[in-house]
């Protein structure tokens, strides 16, 4: 799987609400389509996305087949302490991938 694109500030003030943007390259095959010979193409989507901040879950999303290819998420997080933000997503095959970023709270 390709690396995702992530946009988040490196440093934020304590108490500030900031946005994290992530774009994950994924075909999000819906399971509704058929191939050239009419055979159904099996569903293969990212079905779960979890973001933790300092070990604590701060955002979670469940995805369904209506989500378009290459999902692009924007969500807001409140700055508490300097620490690691980990984003993990899991696909229908059970494979997980994660990316982490460090944030400094001043």
């Amino acid at each position, binding site marked *: 799987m390709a690396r995702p*694109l992530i946009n988040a500030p490196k440093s934020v003030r304590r108490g500030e609400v900031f946005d994290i943007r992530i*774009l994950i390259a994924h075909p999000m095959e819906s399971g509704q389509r058929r191939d050239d010979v009419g055979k159904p193409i099996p569903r293969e989507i990212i079905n779960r996305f979890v973001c933790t901040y300092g070990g604590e879950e701060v955002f979670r999303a469940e995805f369904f087949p209506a989500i378009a290819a*290459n999902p692009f998420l924007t969500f807001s997080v409140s700055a508490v302490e300097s620490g690691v933000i980990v984003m993990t997503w899991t696909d229908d095959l059970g494979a997980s991938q994660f990316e982490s970023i460090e944030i400094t709270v001043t």
Partner: protein
Amino acid sequence: MRATRRGLLAAALALPAIARAQGPARVVVLGGGFGGASAARRLRQIAPEVAVTLIERSATYHACPFSNAVIAGLRDMAAQEFTYGALAADGVKVIAQAATHIDATARRVILADGGTVQYDRLILSPGIELRFKDIAGYSDVAAGVMPHAWKAGPQTLLLRDRLAAVPDGGTVVMSVPGNPYRCPPGPYERASLIAHYLKTHKPRAKLIVLDAKDAFSKQRLFQAAWKSLYPNLEWVGLSGGGKVVEVDAGSGTVKTEFASYKADLANIIPPQRAGAIALVSDVADRTGWCPIDPVSFESRLQPGIHVIGDAAIAGGMPKSAFAANAQAKVCAQAVADLLAGRTPGEPRLINTCYSIVAPDYGISVAGVYRPANGVLTDIEGAGGTSPLDAPPETRAEEARYAESWFRTITTEAFG
């Protein structure tokens, strides 16, 4: 003449609310691009009894097809310029003024000087308006520094001159919008020709194309050509974070959701919608484009107004000069039929788009369309693109076909 008189009678009966003077049926064509000019001339040919008026603010039309070659210094701007002399000679009354509003109920066009022009049927071919506000920091003023050059004319020359001033080793950034927009393969032809210019004149400079889409017209052909010809061209699609959301003309910065690019020259092609008059006259819907009946091109919102060209929602048909010309001819026939009390027949329309990737390197896509379920639909298997593996002679031949096509279509539209 008997058929004519019967036709006029039918037309008069079909419009009971309008007090019509005795005389020929009046068709007003609004907008003198490929669509409008072609429609006015065709209507004069097939229905000489109809009085045709063209309203177009500019005395000179600058054609968009091949304007990318002007930007790359491969073509003279004079080759893009056309006037309305042939239309006047055909008996089209040309009013060189801007129109500000269409009163669809009273069937009249209001001109910039306050005058009005009555019509029995209107053919609206207003082209596009640029949605500057969809990209933060972009505006008509910013376009003086970061040209769009998506309406041919002074902007074309500005981009050409700015390109010539890019330092060797510099960076050119192009921003390409999501669908729909004027000339689907146009940004990629432009990217090719800018890359050709840089490769020839500034070998250390590069071009970055930031695209709000992952898929585009003739993509495999373009990308194969870029791979072999232009190592100086980098294309970033939507899933690579290519959608431009903000620009700063002062510092030459182009921003996506994920990155910031510093450009010596930025060419920003913003999202688009139907020409302004379609919006103020309620001919465009919430999409910003004009819904039409695919047989007659009559507006689904305002009876008596037919919309052709880039402004129309033409289903599978792209927004191209060729499509506008094809729609103009079908629409002219439909308007002549309706004025004569006949029912317009179901049309077949063709589109072909040539793109020049380098001098002597042309590629094309063609499609055939028919109305189906209320929209113009691509007839599967009737069109196609240039072969992916073709010898240089084929590419050179297609580049010549493109030139011939331009001569043919501009002769048909402008004489």
